[in-house]
């Protein structure tokens, strides 16, 4: 044994790690990367801005009483007639862009998160059903997934909007339809790996009820990859919603998301009034990049094979 000093020293550490909860380990591994910390701080700021929009915005951008057309299309840093400063300028209706962006973030984030959660539930159910039931159910579900994933998300979303018509609920429906297939595929492959393990054989031999097998064994093992996909998909959903709104096919004007703000500024861009489009775009970019940074690190810490 004395020939193996390394292993002897490593052992207490290994047992120490075993008593730690998986969540604790993930949290500990997560903060090892400065870029990931930067990402999560950025994301927290974005989420806070979205949640606190009514309290931190200089004005309520959709209360027409607070808007003054005389203040329209002012440059960033201009003084308002009422006294305040429009740090990011105003749009064509004299709306403070900073406030509009906070409110826009709120809408963009909630639509992105809502559609992701719904899609996650559907995809999880479908993926588990495919993996657990197998046979024809699996073939059918996975065929639909394959066909759907061979088309770009934007195309499917546009088809649905074209068929269903416009509106907040329909946009969310389109986003859900676009996303569920990613989860179904991820969950199924994770569940299949788990299903082939020996203890699953044992669980079946013990005649454990299917619900127990699915929820106690399959589901927990599918969660890590699913969470990673979900993080990436929130960003994708936000970007897709923004694109649809920019094209005028997304959320209605009563729900001005970042995409709509950018679209509003489009016509003024050519006359050099860049800020109406530019700043909402930056907000969108920061949101997406911060989510992607977090997702990148999550992917690394949740994948046990990648652990160094």
């Amino acid at each position, binding site marked *: 044994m*004395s*020939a*193996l000093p*390394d292993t002897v020293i490593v052992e207490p550490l290994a047992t120490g790690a075993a008593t730690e909860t998986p969540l604790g380990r993930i949290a500990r591994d997560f903060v090892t990367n400065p870029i990931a910390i930067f990402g999560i701080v950025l994301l927290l700021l974005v989420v806070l801005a979205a949640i606190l929009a009514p309290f931190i915005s200089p004005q309520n951008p959709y209360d027409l009483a607070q808007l003054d057309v005389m203040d329209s299309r002012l440059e960033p840093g201009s003084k308002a007639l009422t006294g305040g400063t429009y740090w990011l300028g105003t749009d064509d209706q004299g709306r403070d862009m900073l406030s509009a962006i906070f409110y826009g973030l709120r809408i963009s984030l909630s639509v992105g998160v809502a559609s992701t959660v719904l899609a996650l539930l559907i995809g999880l159910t479908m993926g588990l059903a495919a993996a657990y039931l197998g046979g024809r159910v699996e073939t059918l579900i996975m065929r639909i997934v394959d066909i759907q994933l061979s088309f770009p998300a934007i195309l499917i979303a546009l088809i649905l909007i074209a068929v269903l018509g416009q509106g907040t609920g329909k946009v969310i429906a389109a986003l859900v339809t676009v996303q569920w297939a990613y989860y179904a595929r991820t969950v199924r492959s994770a569940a299949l790996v788990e299903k082939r393990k020996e203890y699953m054989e044992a669980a079946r031999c013990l005649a454990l009820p299917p619900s127990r097998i699915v929820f106690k064994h399959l589901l927990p093992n599918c969660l890590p990859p699913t969470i990673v996909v979900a993080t990436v998909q929130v960003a994708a959903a936000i970007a897709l919603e923004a694109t649809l709104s920019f094209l005028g096919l997304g959320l209605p004007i009563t729900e001005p998301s970042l995409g709509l703000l950018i679209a509003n500024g489009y016509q003024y861009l050519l006359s050099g009034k860049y800020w109406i489009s530019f700043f909402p775009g930056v907000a969108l970019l920061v949101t997406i990049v911060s989510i992607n940074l977090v997702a990148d690190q999550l992917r690394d810490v949740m994948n046990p094979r990648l652990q160094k």
Partner: protein
Amino acid sequence: MSEPVLRVEELRTHFFTKAGVVKAVDDVSFIVNRGEVMGLVGESGSGKSMTGYSLMGLIDPPGRIVGGRILLDGIDVIKLSGEEMRQMRGNRVAMIFQDPMMTLNPVLRIDTQMIEAIVAHRKVSAGDAHAMAAAALSKVGIPSPEERLSAYPHQFSGGMRQRVAIAIALLNKPDLIIADEPTTALDVTIQGQILYEMQKLTRETGAAVIWITHDLSVVAGLADQVSVMYAGRIVEQGTAEQVLGRPRHPYTRGLLDSVPANNARGARLKQIPGMTPSLLDLPPGCPFRERCSYAQSDCARTPLMRPLTAGQSVRCHHPLA
């Protein structure tokens, strides 16, 4: 005897990893005479493959040759420029690798992979290069070489692929071939064929061979000289009869004892206790002492290579009788 084709002196190849310095090759010296086969024997991780790569100038960062000389026909190849090194590789010194399934590029035809090895070193016409490739294939015992030249690697069996690799190594009539466990990945019957083929070809061409292996039985039938490596160092050197017939280092003894054929039927197989030590920050002293039943307190001092009898030398304070 004439000047040896290869003389390696105090070669050191270290890997500078984040965890520390790995001394993969540490003070290795040996000589390979013209037309001779030298068996370089050791367990995996003993540094034998890294010695081979060092000779070829194929050590990649974080690895680096940090000391010693590699004299090929009297010229130190460590001092060669990148381009001179490239001209040497595959021309004066060729190398064959372990897994023939992986060494040939799967998406290039055999003729492409052979002809490029020729034209990398000399100016020949396409037709001549093609003819040379075909001749090389037939020399290693591949039937209908003309047809096989236009095949892809996956259309060959493992043994056939290794023959192709050998043919490629022989294309430019090298003075030295480094064979890094070329039979390990093959079936036993194929192993025998390849061994036979190599022996025959090297005799015909007069090329010297460094045969890197962990398999002592291969060395016994093939090698003129044997060097045994342990933890990045050569621990015993001599002719095949000396080293295999009367090993003087406890490690070599242990290796020989753990070959099943050398044990009496029904007797318990002998083994060397413990594992090869990690080469990362290896402590001073004899690296084998933790596993050695002859170890004494002075083994904490690093032993030097010392000659015992004519041609046989050993790195041990307490060589076996």
